[in-house]
């Protein structure tokens, strides 16, 4: 019974670590899109001043 309890508590931690790596890649991708679009619009504005 004790072994079962230990396994149950360990598994979710490993799963969380993996999913967070995917999340930071996704967040980084979204951040890159936002930055590129913002810089592009800013560049167009400055070109027309």
């Amino acid at each position, binding site marked *: 019974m004790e072994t079962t309890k230990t396994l149950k508590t360990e598994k979710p931690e490993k799963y*969380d*670590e993996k999913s*967070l*790596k995917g*999340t*930071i890649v996704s*967040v*980084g991708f979204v*951040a890159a899109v*936002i*930055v590129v679009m*913002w810089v592009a619009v*800013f560049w167009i*504005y400055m070109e*027309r*001043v």
Partner: protein
Amino acid sequence: MQHRLEEIWMTISVGILVVFMIIIGYQTFALGMGPPSHSETIDPQKVEQIAPFDDPGVKEIAENEYEVVMILQSFGFNPSNIEVPVGAEVHFTMTSKDVTHGFQVPGTNINAMVMPGHIQKISHTFKEPGNYLVICNEYCGIGHQAMSTTITVK
């Protein structure tokens, strides 16, 4: 591990917002490149009796600096034909006699909302000669699509 990654993406997210706000703030307050303002008001029913709108047109106010006093109404611009020299700084002072109109010159940064009761100001330097299209970009009525004019830059 989890907290470290969360810290990284939260720092990046907040950092991006802060950098954007610093650049926009510097542009607006230090370089004077803020959006057009309409802090001055006017009685829309007496527009043609109140200066400078009692004499709309293009006026040279300094060397290589012009003021265009313009009244917008359904469905036209007064004056309708504007001519300014290349490289001159042009200050547009506008108001509306009736409903909300738009004043946009595609391909430039000129884009202002002109509302009745408010005086709208926007400045621009035309660096290239040519005929610049001016359009109303706020739906103002049944003839909205015909509300346009040109600015001639020589």
